[in-house]
């Protein structure tokens, strides 16, 4: 068990709307997992709870104290006083120089290194932001729509690269793309409205690693299950 929650209850401050009611789930790593669901059901809130960024809930979130959880989202920015390359070098731990080179090549952001963050396209910005998180020491990285505005082919390359390079790490990928989560993820936590119990369902994904072509029928079946559960 990497992270586990029991009977979570939560409502936003200064709001009477209940977001979670008796919610229980677990993420057992390593691997690429997903948190899927329609907008407004509380995906980001749950992810922030896992990362310890949202407090004031009842219930339990159990995790090993040694487990290092990082949460990243797609609207983050890098400071504008230096170019992207300088920034990435500055925040990279000393033993990650090789990783940095490898990631910038695989993510197609080599050209961005000489530019300031504000000069990049939205897709390049998101890839750059994800790169700097991957260079950090973590056990679970929560990616809240971190690959938004990135084209499908590049997204696939990035996910496969991450799965190969960080096979011992755990990822929780928040996305609205049903094909993507069904194809690449191991466990898919499908979250739905508090009025429709059970609020969370876990579906086994295809966990595609790129070695063989995915089983089309199995993929369609998974996608159907996700759609039914959401």
């Amino acid at each position, binding site marked *: 068990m990497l992270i586990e929650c029991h009977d979570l209850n939560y409502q936003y401050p200064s709001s009477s709307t209940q977001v979670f009611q008796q919610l229980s789930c677990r993420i057992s790593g390593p691997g690429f997992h997903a948190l899927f669901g329609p907008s407004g059901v509380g995906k980001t809130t749950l992810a922030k709870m896992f*990362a310890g*960024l949202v407090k004031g809930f009842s219930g339990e979130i159990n995790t090993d104290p040694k487990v290092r959880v*990082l*949460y*990243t*989202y797609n*609207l*983050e*920015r*890098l*400071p*504008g*006083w230096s170019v992207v390359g300088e920034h990435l070098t500055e*925040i990279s731990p000393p033993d990650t120089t090789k990783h940095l080179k490898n990631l910038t090549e695989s993510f197609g952001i080599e050209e961005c290194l000489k530019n*300031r963050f504000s000069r990049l396209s939205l897709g390049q910005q998101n890839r750059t*932001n994800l790169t*700097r*998180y991957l260079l*950090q020491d973590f056990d679970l990285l929560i990616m809240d729509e971190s690959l938004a505005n990135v084209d499908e082919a590049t997204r696939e390359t990035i996910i496969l690269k991450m799965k190969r390079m960080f096979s011992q790490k755990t990822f929780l990928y928040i996305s609205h793309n049903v094909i993507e989560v069904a194809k690449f993820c191991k466990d898919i936590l499908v979250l739905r409205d508090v009025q429709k119990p059970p609020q969370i369902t876990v579906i086994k994904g295809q966990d595609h690693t790129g070695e063989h072509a995915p089983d089309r029928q199995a993929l369609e079946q998974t996608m159907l299950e996700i759609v039914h559960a959401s």
Partner: protein
Amino acid sequence: MLHRRIYQFLIVYALGICMLFLVKFALNLSDYVIPSPMEVWTTARQVFLRYLVNVMDTLAVAVIGHILSIFMATVVGIIGRLTSGVGSLIKIAAFNIQAYPIVAVAPIIFILLGDGPASRLLIASMICYFPLLLSVLGVLTEPVSDIEHFYRVTGRLTWQLEVKIRVFENIAKLTTVVSGSATLAMVGTIVAEFIAADAGIGYTIRIALYQSDLAKILVALFLIGIWTSLYLVCLEWLGHLIQKKWQR
């Protein structure tokens, strides 16, 4: 930038003077109430150099007072950005004290410190300090979450980095506020000189006022306007340089 500021001032000044002469001629007022253009010109030639020295004296006090208040506002702003009790206390105190007209306290300062430069300096600083402090506090207490998040979750966010991020993101706003408060520093110094000082252009205007010599006052106003504009231009240019260097 320089041309624009000076032109703007000259236009406003010329319009004011024209209005004054228009009133004079329309109401057929005597030279004792509103002097003739020739009298203004003669007075200007007589007092120009002396008034220039006085304006420089006032400007020097205003600049030092302004620098002092920028420094104090930055220090207090940095402490005030804390979410602790000290930070909250500073914020509440700043909001309450700035609501009080500082000019009203000026006589007390003159009683305690005398009519030398120290009193002028203190009043100038106080008048431009609180608006500056409120802006600096506003900038430094407002998180730039989309940048700070990474540093916070990776344990890299020091207070110096936090201040750097917030200042960088609001550099244009801060530059405008600093330039704007320069006028207040000048106003503060002149007001102090009006009240009780024994030097500066405010003191000179006070004497001219006792003599009911509007020509002298008009010359003083002209010099104040020109030098304040020049000071503002210098500040805007400095701000522009900082922004250009940082965002190169």
